[in-house]
């Protein structure tokens, strides 16, 4: 039976959808894109600090997902974890390539980032956080993004980053402390002085 877009059950797992895609259901691909792309794009952007590169990473990661679909084994991994892992590795490749060609690893405002003229405190905070994230080491930034922004559990992050849970805890804690220090002089701008 064909499902309408609005019939697609939200309790279908990503793995089920991937298998349905592999079996010929193209609407499952749309559901997967809708579900997975924002988070993967967010992670990639926060790590790479470049919107265009982040979108390329997402596209590459999704291509790999479509290709593995016929062989997907749902019991082996969650699709989202697998996709985070692939995207993170693609991000790491790009970070290494930047260093090879001598590009700075610093903050570079994305072309389409909304300006501060929007005047929204939340945007001020997001921009400040993004800038501060760029000052962290690659591994700290990856751990902080996955733990505190993407909201993943430490064991899942450990799987994605291919490190121990203890290392995740250490990296995310040190990264968070570094952010807190780096952002301290912006406390008033960030709206933390009126409490």
């Amino acid at each position, binding site marked *: *039976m*064909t499902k*309408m*877009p*609005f019939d697609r059950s939200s309790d279908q797992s990503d793995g089920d959808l991937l298998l349905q*895609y*592999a*079996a*010929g*259901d*193209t*609407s499952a*691909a*749309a*559901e997967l*894109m*809708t579900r997975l*792309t*924002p*988070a993967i*794009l*967010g992670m990639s*952007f*926060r790590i790479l600090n470049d919107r265009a590169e*982040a*979108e390329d990473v*997402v*596209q590459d990661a*999704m*291509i790999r997902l*479509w*290709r593995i*679909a*016929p062989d997907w084994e749902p019991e082996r991994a969650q699709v989202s974890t697998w996709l985070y892992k692939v995207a993170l590795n693609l991000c790491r490749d790009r970070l290494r390539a930047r260093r090879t060609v001598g590009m700075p690893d610093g903050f570079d405002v994305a072309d389409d980032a909304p300006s501060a003229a929007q005047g929204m*405190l*939340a*945007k001020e*905070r*997001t921009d*400040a*956080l*993004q800038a501060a994230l760029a000052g962290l080491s690659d591994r700290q930034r990856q751990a902080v993004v996955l733990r*505190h*922004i993407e*909201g993943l559990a430490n064991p899942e992050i450990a799987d994605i980053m291919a490190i121990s849970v203890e290392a995740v805890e250490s990296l995310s804690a040190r990264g*968070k*402390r570094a*952010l*807190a*220090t780096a*952002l*301290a002089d912006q*406390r*008033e701008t*960030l709206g*933390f*002085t009126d409490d």
Partner: protein
Amino acid sequence: MTDTHDSLEDLEMAQLFQAARAQPMVPSQDLMARMAADAAALQPPVVTSAAQGADADHLSLWDRVSGWIPQMAWPVGLATAGLTGVWIGSGTVPVLSDQAQSLLSSDLAYELAFRMPSLTAYLGGQ
């Protein structure tokens, strides 16, 4: 007032992270179109009988969408045409390839048009 703290408090950091989480990245229309083309191109071929069944389902789906929500018919058509345009590239191919035809006859364009009206407008050149 001069602030003497040399780092933000945990609660303040939590508010920063919350602000970031509350502003999820929205994929661009171009990215969605590229991914749609990839998904259509890389989808494993289905057996003939299943394909025939899928085609029948597709027609039924199209009829149902048009019938239930008439106003969706034109943007869905634009999305389909637009996605096909993306798929076949810069227009140098005068006839639809098998893959482009496959995308045209897939549900993906309908799904994307339904989920992302902005993509529909983009693909429709608006």
